[in-house]
């Protein structure tokens, strides 16, 4: 009984709450969610331990695997003193600006395209093949073409990231638009809404949760395209920092950069979930 009370407090899992009614059967059995969490924690700690041990006993050359403390130290020193002419924060800011500029561009293009796909057969006919063509192409494949067309400046970098974001946003938007309930559309029409008003006041807000899901996927896709986008002629950015470090075999900066990218991606994900909660509190509660 005590154990079951503890577990339900720990993870707040709905499955656990039911054990209160039949404690003698289930109290000793941890829930799948808890089991998964414990397994995750052990994995992470295990990997960290292997890393610490192999670095400590120099099982692997520090050129290939620097110690965790060296990586942590680099985090501090690059934050203060910088690496390749910019501090960690300047690199981070440059990357974030690119990703968000790309997101803005992708939203402006892909949301209307998604709406067009969702509401009209002509729109679907026009945009579907384009989206389906772009979707499976890896960014590294179209990067050279974008550079040939738009040069090696900032616009190319933003464009490469934006292209990676187009498909998820357009596809999610289209799905949200198509999912609008016929009853709601009819209710608006019967209250005197024109076709444009139905789109503006019913179909769009109805699609908003879907659009935000697309935005979340797109931000992930864009963030993982970052290194590719900063391959050519960048002077700042996390991807650029990692590549420069790799060229000089400064492995600790490479690893530090990878961790920063992962952590920022995680923070962005949490931010968007907050945004969803704020903008579409009704999603899933109808």
């Amino acid at each position, binding site marked *: 009984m005590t154990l079951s009370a503890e577990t339900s407090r720990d993870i707040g899992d709905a499955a656990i709450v039911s054990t209160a009614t039949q404690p003698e059967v289930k109290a000793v059995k941890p829930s799948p969610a808890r089991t998964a969490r414990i397994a995750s924690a052990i994995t992470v700690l295990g990997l960290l331990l292997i890393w610490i041990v192999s670095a400590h006993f120099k099982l692997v050359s520090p050129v290939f695997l620097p110690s965790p403390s060296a990586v942590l130290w680099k985090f501090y020193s690059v934050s203060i003193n910088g690496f390749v002419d910019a501090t960690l924060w300047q690199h981070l800011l440059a990357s974030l600006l690119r990703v968000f500029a790309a997101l803005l561009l992708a939203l402006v293009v892909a949301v209307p395209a998604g709406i067009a796909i969702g509401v009209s057969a002509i729109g679907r006919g026009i945009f579907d093949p384009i989206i389906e063509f772009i979707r499976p192409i890896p960014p590294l494949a179209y990067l050279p073409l974008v550079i040939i067309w738009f040069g090696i400046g900032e616009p190319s970098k933003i464009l490469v990231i934006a292209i990676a974001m187009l498909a998820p946003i357009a596809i999610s938007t289209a799905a949200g638009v198509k999912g609008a309930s016929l009853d*709601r559309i*009819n209710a608006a029409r019967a*209250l*005197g809404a024109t076709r444009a008003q139905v789109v503006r*006041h019913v179909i769009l807000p*109805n699609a908003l949760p879907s659009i935000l899901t697309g935005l979340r996927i797109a931000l992930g896709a864009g963030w993982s395209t970052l290194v590719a986008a900063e391959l050519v002629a960048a002077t700042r950015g996390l991807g650029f920092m990692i590549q420069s470090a790799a060229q000089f075999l400064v492995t600790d900066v490479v690893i530090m950069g990878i961790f920063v990218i992962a952590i920022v991606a995680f923070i962005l994900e949490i931010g968007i979930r907050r945004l969803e909660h704020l903008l579409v509190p*009704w999603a899933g509660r*109808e």
Partner: protein
Amino acid sequence: MAHLVLDHVSVHYDGQAQPAVTQAGISVKSGDFVVLVGRSGCGKTTLLNTAAGLISPTGGTVTVDGKKVTAPGADRAVVFQNDALFPWLSVRDNVSFALKLRGIPAQERDAVAARLLELVKLDGIGGKAIWELSGGMRQRVGLARALAAEPDFLLMDEPLGALDALTRERMQTLLLDIWTANNIGVLMVTHGIDEALLLATRIVVLAPGPGRVVRQIDAGFGRRYVSGESVRSIKADPAFNRARAELEDSIFEGEAA
């Protein structure tokens, strides 16, 4: 005085062997409370949606005051079985949605919403979110939203179908109160025999295969409620039971034929 007429209306959906409705004639004037009853598949909802302009008839005409109906309009507000409220708007903004479509300023909209929420006995919940409401409250918000359009006709598709018995009874009297207070014409679909008898001034009995009108029965129990008699006393009247038996027979005859 507005007059909604369905004249020899037939609706034949694409790819179906039989028409959903054939040659149906229904008339609703301001102050009428017309209720459509009949077994599933007799075309009640189809007829209602045709009157609303959401479906175009394949034969016959729908007219309001002699003018042909070709699209939905705010003069014929619709209340759906599934309330079809907009969860991204507050209760208040749901109610005043029709006014927003007409570009009426927010302050005026809020005043109308407050008045209508009071009318459906939901005063003070304007700021709430839709998902915070019970089924009965949602249906009343749907009703207030329809009334905000100041319609001549209220078209309701089993508006009380999803409610529990107690809430349902309270909603029935609320409907009667609103109907008389606003002198509107009501066209309503229901499965409830007692509900039809209690509310209607005229009951239209439909039969399936293909959907058609088999009988129209005048009723006056709703008017008795409006002039002060209690629902309990109306339902205890032997005349109510006789009328119910008669109505059940009509529905059954339609089935057999």
